[in-house]
């Protein structure tokens, strides 16, 4: 056996520092998923339109993101893109953009599925009173699809939160990065990673619970 001794006080001492990281993690996730939601809805709706161009464009975006690892997307955004753009985003901006683009592609599929699930008769009824396809989507289909999207949306939210730990590679000071920094000073890998894990768990549980609450609140009676 090693001479390792578990020291709970380390966990308490490092907590304030790690909480800073957790706060940033939550921010990046919220911002990333907010824009991801906008991208996702735009792409998901485009996939549901009659226009072949809108469908194709959204399809390319979705395949591109879903077919490549997030890590590569992050590196490309932060290290690759600046070489042709001539300017580099700050790490935090690049991180938020990466999470937004990435979650957007998955949310797009969720949105497309939810729209497809709304009964076909709803679109027809809307068209029959003279609404255009876009108006029907906005006023009739979307409000119903959105309710069906809440559970999978929560799922994606949790996934994105965990994905933010990858942003450590471009130096975003989120929770995982804070863990590394603390360990570099106190060498207490066990206690620190345990605390980091517990903090992630609190965050994901918090998201799951709030989404479940939303789901109940917006439940649609058929």
């Amino acid at each position, binding site marked *: 056996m090693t001479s390792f001794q578990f020291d709970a006080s380390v966990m308490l001492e490092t907590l304030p520092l790690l909480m800073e990281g957790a706060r940033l993690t939550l921010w990046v996730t919220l911002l990333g998923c907010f824009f991801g939601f906008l991208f996702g809805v735009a792409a998901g709706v485009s996939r549901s339109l009659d226009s072949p161009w809108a469908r194709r464009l959204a399809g390319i975006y979705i395949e591109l993101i879903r077919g490549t690892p997030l890590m590569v997307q992050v590196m490309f955004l932060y290290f690759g893109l600046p070489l042709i753009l001539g300017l580099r985003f700050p790490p935090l901006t690049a991180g938020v953009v990466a999470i937004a683009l990435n979650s957007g592609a998955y949310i797009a599929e969720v949105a497309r599925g939810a729209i497809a699930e709304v009964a076909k008769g709803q679109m027809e*009824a809307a*068209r*029959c*009173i003279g*609404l255009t396809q876009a*108006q029907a989507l906005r006023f009739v289909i979307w409000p119903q699809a959105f309710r069906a999207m809440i559970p999978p949306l929560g799922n994606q939210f949790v996934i994105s939160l965990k994905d933010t730990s990858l942003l450590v590679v471009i130096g975003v000071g989120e929770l995982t990065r804070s863990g590394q920094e603390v360990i570099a000073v106190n060498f207490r890998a066990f206690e620190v990673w345990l605390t980091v894990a517990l903090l992630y768990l609190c965050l994901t549980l918090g998201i799951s619970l709030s989404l479940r609450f939303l789901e109940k609140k917006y439940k*649609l*009676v058929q």
Partner: protein
Amino acid sequence: MIQIKEISKSFGGKKVLDQVTMRLDQGEVVVVIGPSGSGKSTLLRCINALEQPEEGEVWLCGQNMATADLNHIRSIAGMVFQQFNLFPHMSVLDNLTLGPKIVQGMPLKEAKDLARALLHKVGLADQSSAFPHQLSGGQQQRVAIARALAMKPKVMLFDEPTSALDPELIGEVLAVMRQLAEEGMTMVVVTHEMGFARSVANRVVFMDQGKIKAQGPTERFFNAPSHPRLQNFLSKVLNH
């Protein structure tokens, strides 16, 4: 008012409408009957361009549906479906005001007044804040009729409006349709309610296998059915 000229429509190689020709004058009520799968719904859906026929032409109020601005012309023909298709996330009142508000740009207050008047007309004045799922099937279908009327259509198309209803709820829906007919609305009604057809229709059309096999003024149609398949069909529906 409606002119259908030799339209044909196929689904996956199967001819669902085969050279159908029909015309409807203002104020006429035509009932379409026929066995299931004979193309009745498809015929109605061609009238408001939910389906596009491959051959032939549909004219609605002097406009060719193949070249008309569909979004505009669709609301000229109100449609009532077997499954009601009310918007479940909106109150009854909002179901009625959506079209006038969005499509016609009617001010909200005016749209609400119109909606209340129509709900009164279909006997549901007290249900304006209810949601569709809180209503019986018969009430939902009456809301659906009022929703179509809110667009001030020139023609009303009914696709088996009472087929999804419990027998005791059919009467209230037919009563609303009867009243509409009496007020002079032009109507095409697909139904199996022969009593309604006899008492309300000016003309009855019998469809079978994508073709109009028989048609005529209501009295003559029922008293002297001309076609053997029609006699067979009538003996089946009239006996239960």
